[in-house]
């Protein structure tokens, strides 16, 4: 779950990392009002994308009038598909220099990794690698003073600056662990009058750990259908084609999409009904797919833990209740295959034995 900048900054403040003075507003007049309190300000669109700066989603303002106008402009924007409905108005910082600091997870090496640079303020992908310090943290030890000293040495930070930087690093690491974050990023970490201030905040919380992060406000970036699928426990991603796809297992679902593309079709979605999907879950998945009004529906089931007769019964049930009009291409093999096929044949639905035949048929029907 990605957090908005202002939420990330609240978390930063909670662990003692300095952030600029600011307020969240939802209309231009409010923005002008905040200006009157704080003076020269920066107004930032609150969207869950890193492309904000380049898209013009940040404005510096020097009088209330300007604050109001710029806020009005920002509130009408759509950035990278996200509609802007909230702004963060902050006191403008006096910037001496800009650093970069982040902690994330290295999936391959299975440990937290600290990324730091004295060249902050730009996309980290654009910073030459020799200017990025990458330090792996032993997960059993956690972040220790000797590690912070080594990171500062590599950054060539001295004395007072090194201890200021280390203090931020320790606070950020604590937040990373306590909040089950996948990413905490400060870019830029601004040096202003001798102290570090987090001018931006990017925080992503591990969805799987939300059960123990109950006090965090939930941020929704899913589409309406994706949200519904999530609530049903289904992995679902909307795509832009016209062949609705359901498969059991994530790898199988991906391979099904790949095959549809290979034969010249375009899938409407990714849907993993689960490697062990039962009847109820399958029925819900089917109803969700029908709601997308596809041109063709392809169901690809390799029965293992999932039983073919359960899937067939679920389909028959939905068909009885919903009157399915779109053509359905069913691939059904594995556990209780014969029983499943019979159930489908009895209601006039034919089945395929291989993924290839089914994908080719689905593409042909979509033409």
């Amino acid at each position, binding site marked *: 779950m990605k957090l908005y900048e202002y939420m990330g900054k609240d978390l930063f403040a909670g662990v003692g990392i300095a952030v600029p003075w600011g307020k969240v507003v939802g209309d231009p007049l409010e923005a002008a009002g905040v200006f009157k309190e704080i003076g020269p300000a920066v107004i930032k669109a609150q969207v869950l994308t890193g492309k904000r700066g380049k898209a013009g989603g940040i404005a510096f303002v020097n009088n209330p009038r300007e604050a109001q106008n710029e806020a009005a402009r920002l509130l009408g924007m759509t950035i990278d598909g996200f509609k802007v409905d909230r702004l963060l108005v902050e006191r403008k910082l006096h910037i001496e220099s800009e650093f970069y600091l982040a902690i994330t997870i290295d999936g391959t090496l299975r440990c937290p990794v600290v990324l730091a640079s004295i060249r902050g303020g730009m996309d980290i992908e654009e910073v030459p690698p020799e200017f990025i310090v990458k330090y792996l943290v032993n997960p059993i030890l956690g972040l220790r003073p000797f590690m912070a000293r080594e990171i500062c040495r590599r950054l060539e930070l001295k004395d007072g600056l090194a201890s200021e930087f280390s203090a931020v690093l320790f606070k950020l690491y604590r937040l990373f662990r306590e909040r089950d974050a996948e990413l905490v990023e400060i870019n830029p970490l601004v040096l202003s009058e001798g102290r570090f201030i987090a001018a931006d905040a990017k925080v992503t919380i591990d969805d799987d750990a939300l059960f123990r992060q109950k006090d965090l406000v939930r941020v929704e970036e899913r589409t309406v259908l994706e949200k519904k699928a999530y609530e049903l426990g289904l992995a679902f991603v909307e795509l832009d084609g016209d062949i609705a796809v359901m498969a059991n*297992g994530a*790898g199988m679902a991906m*391979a099904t*999409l790949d095959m549809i593309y290979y034969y010249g079709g375009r899938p409407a979605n*990714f849907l993993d009904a689960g490697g062990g999907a039962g009847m109820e879950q399958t029925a819900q998945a089917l109803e969700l797919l029908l709601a997308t009004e596809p041109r063709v529906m392809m169901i690809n089931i390799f029965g293992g833990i999932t039983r073919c007769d359960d899937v067939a019964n679920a389909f028959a049930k939905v068909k009885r209740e919903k009157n399915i009009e779109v053509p359905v291409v069913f691939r059904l093999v594995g*556990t209780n295959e014969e029983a499943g096929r019979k159930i489908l044949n009895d209601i006039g639905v034919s089945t395929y034995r291989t993924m290839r035949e089914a994908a080719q048929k689905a593409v042909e029907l979509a033409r």
Partner: protein
Amino acid sequence: MAIFIDENTRVMVQGITGNQGTFHTKQMLAYGTNIVAGVSPGKGGSMVEKIPVYDTVESAFLEYEPDAAILFVPAPFARDGVLETLSVGIKVIVVVTEGIPVHDAIEIIALARINGAVVVGPNTFGLISSGKCKLGIMPHQYYVRGPVGIVARSGTLSYEIVANLKEAGFGTSTAVGLGGDRVAGLSFIDVIREFEADSETELIVMIGEIGGTSEEEAAHYIKNNVKKPVIAYLAGKSAPPGKRMGHAGAIIERGQGTFQTKVQTLESAGVRVAELPFEVPYLVKEFLG
């Protein structure tokens, strides 16, 4: 020979009294797995499929000394369950549970390494040494003895390929599920190294997908260390960047984990990459005729 487990492996099932635990205990027994004990806090003294159930791992261990464990424990309790198993010295731990917080997974994997233990998963279908021992949830009718070693990130897709191989007359030595999460106890390299040394395995099939860099790292390892032929199939060619495709680890982020990079790196290491899953048996046939 086989890798990680064989006909002598003594298995303990954690979370044996839950729906999944009971169902798969029955299935594993049917395949011939030597399950000696189960654990389920608060259910000690009961029996599941004639297997004695204990409240704690330690009490089960004192009685039966199992050497491998499989966990069907709900995600919020999985870390504690794995640590409990590590603490008695069990060296092979299969974590089927899906949805374990990534910080928990990192911790248990790091501690397992310190203890010289192997964590298979989390979010894995497990592992199976054909005809010898099944420690997982795969539909086992497709796993017959043969020369092909399987290492996969996803369950059903590997079942599909194993079934295709069986139909073409090729059995499997051992099949290992790395798991679909962002961090996994075993990497492709860990498993490929074992297959290279395993006398029963003549050829290795790796089933990967987009996201992460474990296929790329495997490619570098294969280039320098593996003499046996390696065939790969990768899912997710058509996946859009930034979207999680079912598995927590199946996501293209910051330009990393793309299909194209993986295929290029593997091919330059001499790995044959199948375009579609059903082509895998044809490629196997080229090597094993």
